[in-house]
């Protein structure tokens, strides 16, 4: 009898109870997020195989590079991208184009700017992107255009992408000298001959991307690509010395087809270790084929600190057109003494320290600070050091309803 009164009492009280008020002050906020990345790098190298002096002579080079990249995500569909950078290049070998006068290219500037827009198509998981930009240095002007398509499946375990890219280059020297292009620059003692009657280079590339989640700790990426280049593929101030003591400007075929394929497998081992492994096979019609292996191990010391070591090995069978200093036969049609195109083995190793606090200060978030050092050596004797500092920030902005 008593129990019945308790039940009736509880039911009666439930009629008087009030849920969440309908005039709640909670409102869904629309946020625009801007992420900013600053990369500052220093590169130094030295060796005695400069292509400017025909495969002998100093290759001493220093590059100070700074790049700022911004990604503005307006909402879940629209995003804008902007990046700009300046490289200050100090090159001893380019000073040997004319031996006497210290050329403008001894200390050269490379400036590059890119802007892009991407949009997720309505009611799909497909994003379309466009990007355009240019880069300029004293002997080079390059205009770039790109179109990309990216699709993610419903469970977000598979991603497919395709990127089309074109680079339209002008190799005439002088833009940074007096503002207008003048002519191709040849080595000083070879300027009595017009070696090339064209100065443009075009590059068209298609890059595919296939990303697959294998399990909670492993993902696989496959990246095949095709690049086709045409026009002036020789560098007009590279000398080539022949075995009969004659001297000419480097001459390479006017068409080049490159076929690379890269495979990346990333694995989270235990709770702290990450292994990034990458392999690439490369082939081109200059006769180059190459295998590249890159292994990077990261240890999450704390949730904020990550320390990584990496090791990269690159084995390259050189171009059919390469011969060292005074080794070319004058009857050859195509010839170069540029060691970048020779048979070689390169080795790179180094460390990365990453501090990622994701600390919020008002509307901004300090995402990460990264320091990276790499030592690079090539089997022909080239030694290089690379130091990179990376800074990541993001900003939120409330949008009007």
């Amino acid at each position, binding site marked *: 009898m008593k129990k019945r009164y308790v039940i009736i009492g509880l039911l009666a009280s439930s009629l008087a109870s009030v849920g969440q008020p309908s005039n709640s002050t909670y409102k869904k906020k629309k946020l625009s997020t801007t992420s900013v*990345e600053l990369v500052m790098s220093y590169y130094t*190298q030295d060796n005695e195989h400069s292509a400017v002096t025909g495969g002998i002579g100093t290759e001493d*080079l220093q590059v100070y*590079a700074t790049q700022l990249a911004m990604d503005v995500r307006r909402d879940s569909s629209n995003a804008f991208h902007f990046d700009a950078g300046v490289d200050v290049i100090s*090159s001893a070998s380019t000073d040997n184009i004319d031996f006497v006068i210290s050329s403008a290219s001894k200390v*050269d500037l*490379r400036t590059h700017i890119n802007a892009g827009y991407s949009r997720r198509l309505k009611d799909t998981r497909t994003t379309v992107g466009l990007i355009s930009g240019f*880069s300029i*240095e004293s*002997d*080079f002007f390059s205009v*770039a255009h790109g179109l990309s398509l990216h699709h993610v499946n419903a469970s*977000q*375990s598979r991603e497919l992408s395709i990127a089309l*890219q074109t*680079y339209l280059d002008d190799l005439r020297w002088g833009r940074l000298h007096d503002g207008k292009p003048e002519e191709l620059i040849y080595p000083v003692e070879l300027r009595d001959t017009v070696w090339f009657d064209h100065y443009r280079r075009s*590059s068209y*590339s298609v*890059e595919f991307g296939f990303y*697959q*989640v*294998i*399990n*909670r*700790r492993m993902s696989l*990426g496959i*990246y095949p690509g095709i*690049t086709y280049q045409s026009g002036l593929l020789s*560098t007009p101030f*590279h000398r080539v010395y022949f075995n009969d003591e004659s001297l000419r400007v480097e001459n390479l075929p006017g068409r080049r087809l490159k076929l*690379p394929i*890269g495979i*990346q497998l*990333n694995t*989270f081992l235990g709770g702290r270790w*990450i292994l990034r492994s*990458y392999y*690439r*096979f490369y082939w081109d019609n*200059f006769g*180059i084929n*190459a295998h*590249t292996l890159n292994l990077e191990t*990261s240890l*999450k010391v704390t949730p904020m600190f*990550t320390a*990584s070591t990496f090791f990269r090995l*690159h084995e*390259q069978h050189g171009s059919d057109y390469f011969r060292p200093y005074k080794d070319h036969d004058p009857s050859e049609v195509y010839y170069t003494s540029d060691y*970048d195109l020779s048979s070689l083995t*390169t080795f790179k190793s180094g460390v*990365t320290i990453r501090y*990622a606090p994701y600390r919020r200060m008002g509307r901004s978030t300090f995402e990460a600070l*990264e320091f*990276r050092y790499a030592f690079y050596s090539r089997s022909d004797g*080239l030694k290089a050091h*690379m130091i*990179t*500092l*990376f800074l990541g920030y993001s900003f939120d902005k409330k949008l009007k309803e």
Partner: protein
Amino acid sequence: MRSYIVIGFLLIVSLSCESVKPYQRVYLNDYEMKPGQPGSRKFEESVQAYREGSSGGGSSKTSGGCGCN
């Protein structure tokens, strides 16, 4: 023969894929698990493209630019 081994490996890998729920992606979403060459790695990719005759395959640099120094 080598290509058959690679295709076989990729088939085994793709068949062994398991479904991962959004709340199970804590390891996959980690920064170090990002595909491609994120953060400070980009600069080195461009240097390597100049100092070696090969480029592309997921690296950020495929063509364009001088690199003639």
